């Protein structure tokens, strides 16, 4: 093996190197605060390298593969994790009780990201399963991170049990697929998979295993509890990065291995999408806790994603990528504001945000932009991504699905505007006092705002993703 072949795995190698460096510094020093800036600089370096240096090829007999499209997916994930790390600075550095744990937090978060990267660039089901578990198990530890809180432990319990059950179901599907085809390589399966009853069962098991991670509706019951109990930054990690990675691997599996099944999964995804959008929206309306509200809004947002899968076109794939890129920015913007407020005051109920604009102008404007982008109001990027998704469904002739999706987009506008109304219009005698956020959080929110405003306006970004997705 030459050095060129190793460079295919540059992103994973760099991430694991950062994780090891973090551990070593954590052991060597007593002043744990130094750790954080070092790691941020290393992580920015990794993210930038991912954008500059493109790779294309296979390793280990096809177990690991890398294409420009997969590179783009990893770049989206890296950017999102960078924003989350910046946002969690306030929670980690400003609280003395968390100083001991900075090293552990960063190590676990980065190993989970490395697992996602391995999962996305897997070329067979063994690599896929290992990456999936490396991505999931560390998150369970992070969800139960606040050892002193009962809610955190409860959320961790619910998360690890449902994650393990879903991966068991997924594995059973893979074993049936192996028994009927005799291989676990995506390349071989691509030619030999055909619609028989047993293989359709295997496909449904695999789909439901991944749908657990995306929290599509019949499999969503863990979501709200885990999101509420976990620390805010972990919630934002789960709702954007983890969800995006699972959608990416679902995209790759559907478009490569299960392309012969397209008539089955078109039908299935239509039902899943309708259920997810409707139920996510209906539950989001009645939430008062802002974290729980954002959890159900993220379920509803996940319901729009299957619209892009329909038909199995490469244009659909690039639309899904574009949607997730913007979703990561806008969701992290909203969670960033919640994270700043929670780490400063500990308040996370919606009524606490009454009159927020009077005291914190900047933060409430960021929150407003993110919510508008999630709702899909024209000048911001969220409108364009949703519009493109609707176009894909319309082109394939699924008008009923489109009708439901448009109605749901309208309903979602109602509850997003409830939060905006609370911040800007509602009166409050004791609004949250002025919060001065630290440099890291400001930088993170600035990246989010730039992403929300400019990814939609410059068509060149969508064109770029579209040229990549030809080679899926």
């Amino acid at each position, binding site marked *: 093996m030459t050095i060129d072949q190793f460079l295919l795995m540059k992103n994973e190698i760099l991430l694991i190197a950062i994780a090891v460096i973090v551990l070593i510094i954590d052991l060597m020093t007593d002043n744990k605060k130094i750790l954080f800036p070092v790691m941020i600089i290393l992580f920015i370096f990794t993210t930038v390298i991912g954008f500059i240096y493109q790779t294309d090829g296979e390793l280990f007999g096809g177990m690991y593969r890398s294409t420009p499209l997969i590179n783009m997916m990893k770049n989206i994930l890296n950017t999102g994790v960078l924003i989350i790390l910046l946002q969690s600075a306030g929670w980690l550095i400003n609280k003395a009780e968390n100083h001991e744990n900075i090293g552990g937090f960063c190590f676990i978060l980065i190993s989970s990201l490395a697992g996602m990267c391995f999962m996305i660039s897997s070329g067979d*089901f*063994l690599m896929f*399963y*290992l990456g999936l*578990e490396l991505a999931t*198990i560390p998150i*369970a*530890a992070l969800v*139960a991170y606040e*050892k002193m809180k*009962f*809610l955190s*432990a*409860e*959320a*961790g*319990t*619910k998360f*690890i*049990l449902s994650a*393990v*059950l879903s991966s*068991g*179901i997924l*594995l*059973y599907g*893979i*074993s*049936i697929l*192996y*028994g009927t085809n*005799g*291989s*676990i390589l995506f390349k071989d399966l691509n030619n030999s998979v055909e619609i028989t009853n047993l293989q359709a069962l295997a496909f449904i098991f695999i789909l439901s295993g991944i749908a657990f991670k995306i929290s599509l509706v019949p499999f969503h019951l863990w979501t*709200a*509890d885990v999101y*509420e*109990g976990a620390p805010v930054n972990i919630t934002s990690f789960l709702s954007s990065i983890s969800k995006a990675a699972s959608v990416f691997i679902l995209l790759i599996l559907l478009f490569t291995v299960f392309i012969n099944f397209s008539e089955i999964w078109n039908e299935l995804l239509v039902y899943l999408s309708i259920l997810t959008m409707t139920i996510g929206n209906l*539950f989001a309306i009645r939430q008062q806790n802002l974290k729980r509200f954002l959890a159900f809004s993220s379920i509803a947002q996940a319901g729009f994603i299957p619209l892009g899968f329909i038909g199995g076109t490469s244009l659909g794939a690039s639309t899904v990528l574009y949607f997730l890129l913007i979703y990561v920015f806008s969701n992290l913007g909203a969670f960033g504001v919640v994270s700043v407020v929670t780490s400063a005051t500990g308040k996370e109920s919606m009524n606490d945000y009454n009159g927020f604009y009077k005291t914190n102008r900047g933060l409430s404007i960021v929150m407003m932009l993110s919510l508008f982008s999630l709702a899909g109001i024209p000048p911001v990027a969220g409108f364009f991504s949703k519009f493109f998704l609707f176009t894909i469904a319309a082109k394939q002739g699924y008008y009923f699905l489109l009708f439901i999706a448009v109605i749901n987009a309208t309903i979602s506008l109602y509850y997003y505007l409830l939060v905006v109304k609370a911040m800007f219009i509602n009166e409050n005698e004791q609004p949250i006092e002025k919060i001065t956020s630290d440099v890291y959080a400001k930088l993170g929110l600035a990246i989010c705002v730039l992403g929300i405003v400019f990814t939609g306006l410059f068509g060149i970004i969508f064109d770029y993703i579209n040229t990549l997705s030809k080679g899926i």
Partner: protein
Amino acid sequence: MIENIGIEKFVILSTLMFFIGVYGFLVRKNLITILISVEIILNSVNINFVAFNKYLYPENLQGQFFALFIIAIAATEASVAIAIFVTLYRRIKMIDVENVNKMKY
């Protein structure tokens, strides 16, 4: 090679184990027993992989390697899960699912 035992016996066994595991996961009240049910599911998958490999595709070892990796990962999952149960136990001094219900709708 085991004489007189067809592959269908193994598939029946693994299917039974899978559904026993799912049943136990849904019905049991103790968190440790729920974890054991999940381990039964993972072991049923192992039986499937090894049996398919031995009977249908003996020319390569993909299935057996997969089973090895599943065993290793099942151990890590169990250790993380039990670590979380321990923190839970320290808070409420019991590990029944009925007590883990502070968050609902």
